[in-house]
């Protein structure tokens, strides 16, 4: 009798725990699926081929697209990454390989603080540092703002990844009579390139969806532009502008934009994973 009771008690406890964990898992998944479903249904139905090939039409005219914003987002993200990746990875290497130094400890604190700065503040900062002196909204300012978003993510992931490489690997490299920089680049880093790439893509996809830092920097426009010193359109800002407008057609365009942005970020992640497996498969003398 005692035994049976105990078993029942244990089973109930097990069940309660299962319900609890399953429940929270579902609670997390519901909003995620709702977002995807919403964007998919609303966005896909508003999406036409024109969306990719046309520039916006004035209010009242049907059709038009966001070609300029798609190209703009890609340009801004590339610009941001071009600034953030070299600096970020180098900082990460420094934090991991020279962790004893005083500068390293200070730098780490700075990076932690940096990742907590709200993106709107980063936007204002870039506005004051770039837009005001140059007296114009510009792609350059947008790229810099995005790079500030990417930096702490790239630094942190690079540092963590390199720290996981055991010290005896570094010792083995040094004992071969290789200078430290070669050991870092060709022994420590070489094995981790695919992992570093994951961190970089993570940072890029995070920045690609940001609106706030672009509002006062790249600002946006309604036509194609490639100039670094001119305003540049981007999907998030364009979506924002269209979504808050009172016009039905523009709101539909905003949905389509949201859909494209989501697919863009998603496919970037998938592409990264694809490269990862490619790199991992590649072996042998290079």
């Amino acid at each position, binding site marked *: 009798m005692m035994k049976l009771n105990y078993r029942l008690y244990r089973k109930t406890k097990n069940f309660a725990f299962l319900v609890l964990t399953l429940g929270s898992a579902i609670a997390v998944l519901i909003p995620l699926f709702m977002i995807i479903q919403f964007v998919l249904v609303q966005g896909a139905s508003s999406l036409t081929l024109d969306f990719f090939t046309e520039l916006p039409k004035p209010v009242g005219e049907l059709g038009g697209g966001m070609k300029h914003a798609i190209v703009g987002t890609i340009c801004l993200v590339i610009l941001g990454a071009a600034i953030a990746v070299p600096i970020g990875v180098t900082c990460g290497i420094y934090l991991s390989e020279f962790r*004893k130094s005083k500068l390293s400890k200070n730098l780490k604190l700075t990076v932690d603080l940096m990742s907590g700065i709200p993106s709107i503040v980063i936007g204002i900062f870039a506005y004051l540092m770039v837009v005001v002196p140059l007296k114009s909204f510009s792609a350059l300012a947008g790229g810099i703002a995005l790079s500030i978003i990417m930096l702490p993510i790239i630094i942190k992931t690079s540092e963590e990844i390199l720290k996981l490489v055991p010290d005896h690997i570094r*010792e083995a490299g040094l004992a071969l*009579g290789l*200078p430290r920089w070669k050991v870092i680049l060709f022994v420590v880093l070489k094995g981790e390139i695919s992992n570093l790439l994951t961190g970089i893509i993570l940072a890029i996809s995070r920045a690609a969806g940001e609106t706030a830092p672009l509002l006062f920097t790249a600002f946006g426009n309604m036509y194609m532009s490639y100039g670094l010193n001119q305003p540049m359109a981007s999907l998030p800002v364009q979506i924002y502008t269209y979504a808050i407008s009172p016009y039905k057609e523009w709101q539909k365009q905003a949905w389509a934009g949201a859909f494209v942005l989501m697919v863009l970020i998603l496919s970037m992640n998938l592409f990264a994973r694809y490269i990862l497996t490619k790199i991992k498969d590649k072996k*042998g*003398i290079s």
Partner: protein
Amino acid sequence: MTDYNHAKIILEAKKLEAWFGDFQAVKGITVDYREKTINAIIGPSGCGKSTYLRCLNRIHEEIEGARTAGEVLLEGENIYDKKVDVVDVRRRIGMVFQKPNPFPSMSILDNVVIGLRLQGISKRSTLLETAESCLRKAALWDEVKDKLSSMGTSLSGGQQQRLCIARALAVNPPVLLMDEPTSALDPIATAKIEELMNEIKKDYTVIIVTHNMQQAARISDFTSFFHYGNMVEHGMSSNIFTNPKEKSTEDYISGRFG
């Protein structure tokens, strides 16, 4: 055994001490090594053999909080001198570590030739030739010749250790430090590595840590006995193993403690 008294002294430790933080692991060791000899270091576990060996190529200082005192003279020049380039020291004094440490994410072939390649040698045929001859010397060639492009870490522990030996040989250092290179190997591979040591003795000086008394007696010209960070006794292996001067040496080699 050959008479080595006229051979040139290639490496010399003078009052060498080593610490991990406040803990002193090596307590003032003075000894010299003659060119083209095999020198064994024996002693109970934890007595500071690895630490001492790691001071001879300045790898000890890579550990956080670790430091050394005293001198190590390589061909008369103190490797701890500020003017000396540590990279050059390590190029001339190779090392096989106690734990196998092949480079992960590198193929077997890349593991062996990475040292040469990063020294600027890029001719594929040269690299392949070196790889084959070093892998042969390390008694690994036959086992890996058909899978040179698989990962170094995919090998067994003993194979990995032989890969590390091949890697150390590839850069051709005149002095080779080996920390228990055969402790993970079967008798056949062990015999081959011992054969290798006898072979490379023609050109190289070898300092080897071993827990295997027979091995030390078989292959080494000189033996040092370490105990609690001190070198209790050093001399011709033929003397140490047949006629040790110190009581603790005798106790250790006859298996009465350790």
